[in-house]
């Protein structure tokens, strides 16, 4: 029963598992849904969807599957009512502004036949089954629409432009959860799991753990007189510095980098976590903000952070030859550098032996000369879950000096 719905859900990207489907079926069998589509919608959602990020996809799937079934007429009428009175939800208006709005609406009604519009709208509701992105549909197209234009903003009407209202359950087609769709967060967890491996447990802080071996030992030595020995509990002592490229060539990978960044910053288990940004490659300054306004001298990294800090650099490492090797080679015309970038990169590697470079581009594109050079300085990994795992392994292991690395690659 309904097995097609299961596949419809999966087709729309809702990660439904068989366990969840089975408990949904069990509830269905026990009659909790009271043969009502509304119950089916809400309860089905509670059983099958486990993140608000998928509520929207669920709505779409629900519409597609149950879309043809007629339910309470009331819902559609209510939408129509909203359309006719877009003003009743606005904040308080002064009489002049109210008059101005009325005038504009009236003008709109004069130029467009409102009944004709309503008819079109109804028609569109019937026709539209799938999501339509973009295009000149008249609902939700900002300036040209009477509804978007006057700040009419109940959840219901945002529907208009993008999805149909072939109303099975009103809410499904309202797609109120579209804003919660957040495909970025989906992989943050995986990233976090990989980063979690990055730890060095050291005994620090208050003595609060009972050291059983030592207690037994001492007690025995005291001839049975119990001697309790406490130990400091173990804490992660990893300090991490993240340097991220914000250059134009990194644009396609923004999302990927955001994922890494949000995973790293949400991790509470690092002793310290710092991040800086740079443009294409690193010169005498790095930046505290993405827009590259707040300068921090690179020199400061060396004085503020000792060599125990682990450094992760994220960038595509491909740039003009001169940017890496030349004095004043920086791509920004207003920026001069008296040392080539290469020198700074070498200094970073020397100062922070535990450092890696994560490259969001695929390994096949690493043939570029600058990528190759940087790859000789820093161990370079792909910014994928596997690459990240390897990078973390490298960061945690005893590191090799540059010389050893170049000998290896030679």
């Amino acid at each position, binding site marked *: 029963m309904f097995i097609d719905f299961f596949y419809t859900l999966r087709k729309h990207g809702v*990660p439904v*598992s068989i*366990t*969840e489907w089975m*408990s949904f079926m*069990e*509830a269905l069998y*026990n*009659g*909790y849904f*009271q043969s009502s589509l509304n*119950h089916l919608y*809400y*309860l089905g*959602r*509670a*059983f099958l*969807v*486990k*993140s*608000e990020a998928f*509520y929207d996809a669920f709505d779409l799937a629900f519409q597609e599957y149950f879309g043809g079934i007629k339910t309470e007429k009331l819902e559609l009428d209510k939408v129509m009512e909203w359309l006719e009175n877009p003003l009743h*939800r*606005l*904040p*308080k*208006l002064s009489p002049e*502004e109210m008059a101005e709005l009325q005038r504009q609406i009236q003008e709109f009604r004069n130029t467009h036949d409102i009944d004709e519009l309503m008819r079109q709208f109804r028609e569109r509701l019937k026709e539209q089954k799938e999501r339509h992105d973009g295009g000149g549909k008249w609902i939700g197209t900002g*300036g040209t629409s009477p509804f*978007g*234009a*006057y*700040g009419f*903003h109940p959840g219901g009407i945002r529907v208009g432009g993008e999805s149909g209202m072939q109303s099975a359950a009103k809410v499904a087609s309202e797609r*109120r*959860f579209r804003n*919660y769709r957040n495909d970025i*967060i989906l992989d*943050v*967890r995986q990233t*976090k*799991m990989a980063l*979690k491996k990055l730890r060095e447990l050291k005994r620090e802080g208050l003595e609060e753990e*009972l050291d*059983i071996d030592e*207690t037994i030992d001492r007690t025995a030595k005291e001839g049975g*007189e*119990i001697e*309790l020995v406490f130990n400091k509990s173990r804490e992660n002592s990893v300090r991490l510095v993240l340097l991220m490229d914000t250059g134009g060539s990194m644009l396609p990978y923004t999302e990927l980098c955001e994922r890494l960044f949000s995973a790293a910053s*949400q991790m*509470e*288990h690092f002793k310290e976590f710092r991040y800086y940004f740079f443009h294409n490659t690193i010169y005498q300054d790095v930046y505290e903000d993405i827009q590259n306004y707040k300068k921090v001298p690179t020199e400061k990294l060396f004085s503020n952070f000792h060599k125990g800090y682990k450094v992760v650099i994220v960038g595509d490492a491909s740039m003009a030859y001169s940017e890496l090797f030349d004095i004043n080679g920086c791509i920004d015309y207003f920026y001069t550098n008296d040392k080539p970038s290469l020198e700074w990169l070498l200094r970073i590697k020397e100062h922070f032996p535990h450092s890696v470079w994560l490259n969001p581009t695929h390994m096949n594109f690493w043939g570029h000369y600058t990528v190759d050079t940087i790859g000789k300085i820093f161990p370079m990994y792909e910014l994928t879950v596997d690459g990240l795992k390897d990078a973390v392994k490298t960061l945690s292991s005893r590191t090799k000096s540059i010389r050893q690395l170049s000998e290896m690659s030679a």
Partner: protein
Amino acid sequence: MANATQGYRGSEDYIASKPLMEIVNVAVALGKPLVVKGEPGTGKTLLAHSISRALNKKLIVWNIKSTTKAKDGLYVYDTVQRLNDARFKDKDISDIRQYIKLGRLGQSFKSEEQLVLLIDEIDKADIEFPNDLLNELDEMSFHIHELDEEVVAKHRPIVIITSNSEKELPDAFLRRCLFYYIEFPDDEMMERIVKVHYPDIESKLAKEALKKFYWIREMDGLRKKPSTSELLDWIKALALGGIHLEKIGSEIPFLGTLLKNEQDTDRFIKLSSAQGGFGFKRRF
């Protein structure tokens, strides 16, 4: 089954939307934990309190902190106490049972009657925490190694789990739960909520206040949007301060109860002067 619609129907001081009520009832009937997510101030924690009051069942709260371990909720074996007692021979230490202290989850399993167990802010804990509770919540039983005993729930407790989505919960965990996302209440719902808390309030004052409240919430770029609890505080302040209705129209008295940090207050002043107090500038 008819009793799914009976049972929980919200309580005197808590307004639950209809879908939420039904999901609570199904969760109770099936004995499955219910994961509740939503913006701060949408009443996630209060839901459990409300269920406990409405169904007249005792509530056990397990507040999760970043240091909480799954095992803490089951039981703790107090070795130190036992060793200490062994030093002075005034107690019989052979009975290990007296040093096993049940945690919150353990207590709710052992109870003679059905309880409501609230696991509050599960996302505060370590990322692996929910996985460590998989079996316990599924089977509603656990094993005490020291006694070699199985603790099985006499009555499956009604488990409500809240999360602020600081961390995502693992799939395997979610698969075993029901999930509900509490949306921020719309103005009708909010009016009912305000009425429940302040039954004597003038309805005109409440309406004006709500209008302003949603206007502030829709402003762009606020770091922390005011939530239900802030609205309630604000209305209380308005009522106590004896503010006239006309005043709310033109300015916001007691702004500090709604916006809790300086940047937001600055931003508010900037926006409200730029928009002339209407807040629909961008929509033209």
